[in-house]
C-alpha cells in the first residue's frame, strides 16, 4: 500500500504538471443544462438512509429524503423542514407540527402516518437499522392528528433533536410497505429536493423534485440534475476533475490539494470538519500487562508528541490543534477544562524513567488514513524511548483492532456522526463500550448522566468534569481536527461545511 500511495502521489504531481499545459475542455455537463457531475469514491449497495451509513451514503440520503427538521451547517440552529414547529411537551416527549402540502416524489402527500410508521419501523431493532444509536433512544412515535406527531424517548434524551435533524429521513409508509425494504433501497421515494432518476453501472442520476415545497430550510435546487459518478480510485478522480470529466470531487489528500491549486480551472479547499483525531491509549490494559496502564507513561506520551508541528506541516488547511476529547463546536466541549500537555521530550523521558521504564517501552500503534502523520507520531515517540510498532490498515479493520484490544495505541479519528453534541464524541468514546480504552468508572457515569440530563448548565458541568479527568489521566493524546480536501470547477458556487455533508441543492453555477 505504501508503494501504491507514493506512486499515486507522484502521479498526482505528473497529472498536475501535464494539466498546466493542457487546454481544459468544459465538463461533460455544466451550467448550460443546469447539471453537475460529481465524482464520489463509494458505491451504494442500497439507498436506504437507515441502512446505508457510509459517509457518501449519508450525503446522497440528504438529497433524496427530508427529515422533520434541519440543522443549519453554519449556525448549528435547527430550522423547519417537514415540521414547521416543535416543542418539548415533557421530559420524554417532543411534539412536531407538520407542514401542509408536502409531497413525496410520487406525488402522494406526506402525513403524520408516514412519520409515525417510519420512526416506529426503524426504532424496532429487528428491522436492522445499521446505526442503532440514532434510533435506539426512541420509544415510539404517535400521531395526534394528520399533521401533528409526538416522539417519545425511552429516557430523558437531550440530544433528541440532533438525531431528528441528522439521520431520520421520512419514508412514504404505503410505498415502503408494498415494495419492502430491499426494493425500497433500490428504488427509493422520499420527500427531499431531488428524486432518483436512474441507478446503474456506477452512475446515479438525481433530478430536482418538481413538487418540492417552498419555505423549508433546504432550498429548491438551482442545479436540476446531479450525476453521481462512482470513481473508487483517488488518482483517477483527480485526473477526471482536471480533465473536466467531473465537476466536483472530495477526499483529495492534503498534499494533492496544494498541487491542484495551480490548475487554472479549479477551486480547491482543505476545509474544517467536525471529525477529530486522537492517539487513544490502552489505559485499561486490554492488550495485557502494558506500561500504558501507568498514568506517568501516558503523560510522557502526551509530552513527547509535537502536535503543533504535525498540525502545521502534515494536516494543513483549516486543521486545528485539539486539547479536549471532542470537537470545539460540540455542545459541552469546554476546551478550557482540559489539562494541556506541552511538547517537552525531556519531561517525557523523566516521566518514563520515574515510572520505571528508563530503557523505554515497546507498544503497537494502529493507524489508517494518513501514513505520514502516523510516522511522525512514531518518530516523536521513538525520540523519548517509546518504540511504536506501526500497523497501517484500512479504516474498518484498524478500528476493529483498537476495539478488540489488539493495539496499545491507536491514531484514529472520530466523526461524531456530524452531531454537534459532546454525547456523540465523549459520550461515544468514554462510555465503557469497546471504543473506550480507558474504562474509567467515574467518566463512564459522568457521560451516562450527561446523556440524560436536560438542564444545559448541569450537562455542561458534567462534560467539563469528564474532560478534566480524561486529560488529567491522559487517556488520549487529543491531536487535531481532520480537514477535508475538495477540488471543483471554479464556475461552481460551492461552500464546504463543517459536517462533511456537501449540499448540491445549495450549490449553483456562477
Amino acid at each position, binding site marked *: 500500500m505504501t508503494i*501504491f500511495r507514493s*506512486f*499515486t502521489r507522484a*502521479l498526482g504531481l*505528473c*497529472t498536475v504538471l*501535464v*494539466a498546466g*499545459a*493542457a487546454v481544459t*475542455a468544459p465538463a461533460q455537463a455544466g451550467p448550460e443544462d443546469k447539471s453537475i457531475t460529481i465524482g464520489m469514491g463509494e*458505491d451504494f*449497495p*442500497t439507498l436506504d438512509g437507515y*441502512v*446505508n*451509513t*457510509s459517509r457518501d451514503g449519508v450525503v446522497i440520503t440528504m438529497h433524496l429524503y427530508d427529515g422533520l427538521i434541519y440543522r443549519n451547517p453554519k449556525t448549528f440552529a435547527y430550522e423547519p423542514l417537514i415540521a414547521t414547529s416543535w416543542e418539548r411537551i415533557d421530559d420524554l416527549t417532543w411534539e412536531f407540527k407538520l407542514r401542509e402540502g408536502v409531497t413525496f416524489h410520487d406525488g402522494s402527500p406526506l402525513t403524520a402516518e408516514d412519520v409515525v410508521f417510519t420512526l416506529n419501523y426503524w426504532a424496532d431493532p*429487528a428491522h*436492522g*437499522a*445499521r*446505526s*442503532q*444509536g440514532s434510533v*435506539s433512544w426512541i420509544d415510539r412515535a404517535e400521531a395526534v392528528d394528520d399533521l401533528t406527531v409526538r416522539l417519545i424517548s425511552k429516557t430523558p434524551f437531550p440530544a433528541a433533536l440532533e438525531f431528528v435533524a441528522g439521520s431520520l429521513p421520512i419514508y412514504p409508509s404505503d410505498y415502503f410497505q408494498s415494495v419492502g*425494504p*430491499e426494493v425500497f*433501497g*433500490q428504488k427509493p421515494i422520499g420527500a427531499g429536493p431531488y428524486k432518483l432518476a436512474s441507478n446503474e*453501472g*456506477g*452512475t446515479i442520476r438525481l433530478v430536482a423534485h418538481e413538487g418540492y415545497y417552498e419555505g423549508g430550510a433546504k432550498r429548491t435546487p438551482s442545479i436540476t440534475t446531479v450525476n453521481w*459518478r*462512482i*470513481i*473508487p*480510485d483517488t*488518482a*483517477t478522480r483527480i*485526473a*477526471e476533475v*482536471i*480533465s473536466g*470529466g467531473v465537476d466536483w470531487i472530495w477526499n483529495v489528500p492534503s498534499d494533492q490539494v496544494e498541487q491542484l491549486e495551480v490548475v487554472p480551472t479549479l477551486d480547491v479547499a482543505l476545509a474544517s470538519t467536525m471529525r477529530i483525531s486522537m492517539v487513544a491509549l490502552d489505559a485499561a490494559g486490554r492488550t495485557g500487562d502494558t506500561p500504558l496502564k501507568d498514568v506517568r507513561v501516558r503523560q510522557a506520551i502526551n509530552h513527547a508528541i509535537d502536535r503543533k508541528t504535525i498540525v502545521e506541516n502534515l494536516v494543513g488547511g483549516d486543521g486545528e490543534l485539539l486539547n479536549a476529547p471532542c470537537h470545539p463546536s460540540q455542545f459541552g466541549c469546554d476546551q478550557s477544562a482540559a489539562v494541556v500537555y506541552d511538547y517537552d521530550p525531556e519531561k517525557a523521558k523523566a516521566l518514563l524513567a520515574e515510572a520505571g521504564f528508563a530503557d523505554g517501552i515497546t507498544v503497537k500503534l494502529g493507524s489508517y488514513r494518513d501514513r505520514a502523520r502516523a510516522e511522525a507520531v512514531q518518530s516523536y515517540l521513538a525520540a523519548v524511548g517509546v518504540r511504536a510498532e506501526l500497523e497501517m490498515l*484500512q*479504516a*474498518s*479493520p484498524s*478500528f*476493529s483492532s483498537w*476495539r*478488540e484490544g489488539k493495539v496499545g495505541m491507536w491514531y484514529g479519528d*472520530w*466523526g461524531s*456522526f456530524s452531531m454537534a453534541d459532546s454525547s456523540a464524541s465523549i459520550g*461515544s468514546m468514554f462510555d465503557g*463500550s*469497546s*471504543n473506550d480504552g480507558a474504562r474509567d468508572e467515574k467518566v463512564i457515569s459522568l457521560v451516562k448522566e450527561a446523556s440524560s440530563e436536560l438542564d444545559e448548565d448541569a450537562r455542561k458541568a458534567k462534560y467539563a468534569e469528564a474532560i478534566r479527568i480524561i486529560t488529567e489521566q491522559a487517556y488520549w493524546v487529543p491531536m487535531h481536527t481532520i480537514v477535508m480536501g475538495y477540488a471543483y470547477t471554479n464556475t461552481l458556487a460551492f461552500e464546504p461545511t463543517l459536517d462533511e455533508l456537501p449540499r448540491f441543492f445549495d450549490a449553483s453555477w456562477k
Partner: protein
Amino acid sequence: MLTYLMRRATMAAVVMVIVSVICFVLSNVASDPAVGIAGAQATDADLAVVRQTYGLDRPLPVRYAEYIGNLLQGDFGTSYLAKRPVLEMILERLPVTALLAFLSMALALAIALPLGCAAALWPNTLVDRLSQVLAVTGQAIPNFWAGLLLIVVFGVQLRWLPISGSDTLAHFVLPAITLGTFAMPPLMRLIRAGMIEVLASDYIRTARAMGIRPFALTFKYALKNAVLPVISLAAVQLGFMLGGSIVVESIFALNGVGYLAWQSMSRSDMPVIQAIVLLISMIYIVLTLAADLLNGIMDPRLRGARK
C-alpha cells in the same frame, strides 16, 4: 477421454471445497464482519444488533455448514449490504469483466504472436532485443501504475479517450491496454522459446530441405506446434486477468466483478466475496480443463498419453 474428464471434474470439486473453506475462514478471521456491515463508527449496540440480525453470533463451523448447504442448492447467499442475491449481482456485472478480459487477451495475443515469432526467426538481432525489452518492461510495470500513466497521457493530456466509466467501447480501450500489457510478456516469451525449439527440430529441417517456402514453413508448420503450450498459458493468464481486473476496474471505475470484489472486501460483505472467489476458482478450473482438451485435440500424442 471420459475417465480423464471424470478425474478432472472430481479434482475440480475438491479444489472448490478447499477454496471455499480457506476463503470462509480467512474472511471471517481477518476482520470482524459485523464492523464491516455496521461501519467503522458503529457503537457496541449497533454491532450487537448486526451480529444477531445476520447470524454472526453463531459459531464458525455452524455458519460454514449452512453456507455449504445453501451452496449445494445453488444459493450463493444474499449480500449483507445490498440484501440482493449474490449470484444476481455477479451476473449483472459479469459482461463488463468478460469484455475487458476478452479485449485484453486479444490485445496480448495480437502483440505476443507476431513479436514472439519475429524474435524467434531472427534471434539475437535488434528485433529480438527490442521485443525482450518490451516484455520485461511490460512485466515490470505494475498494473495500477501503467493504468494511471495511460490516464495522464491519453485522458488528461491528449484527451483522446475517456478515463473512467463503462458506457461505450471507448471506455474499455485504456483498461484493456493496461491489462493486456500485463498478460502479454509471458505469452511472448513462450512463443519465442517454442518457435526457436520447433524451428531447430528435424521435421522443419526436412521441410526446409524439401524447398517449402519460409512463410509457409513458419506459420503453417512451426507455429502450430509452438502454440500448444501457449494455449495452456493463455488459459491461466485469463484467470489471472480476473484477479488483475480488481485493480484495473477500480482505477478505471469499470463496474465489473473485479470492482464488486474490491468493494465487498472493503466492506466485509462476506457472501459476495465468497461467491466471487468461488467463481474465479471455478473459471480457473474450467479454463485449464478446456485448455487441456484443446491441446488434446491439437496434439494426438497428448491424447494417447492420457488414456
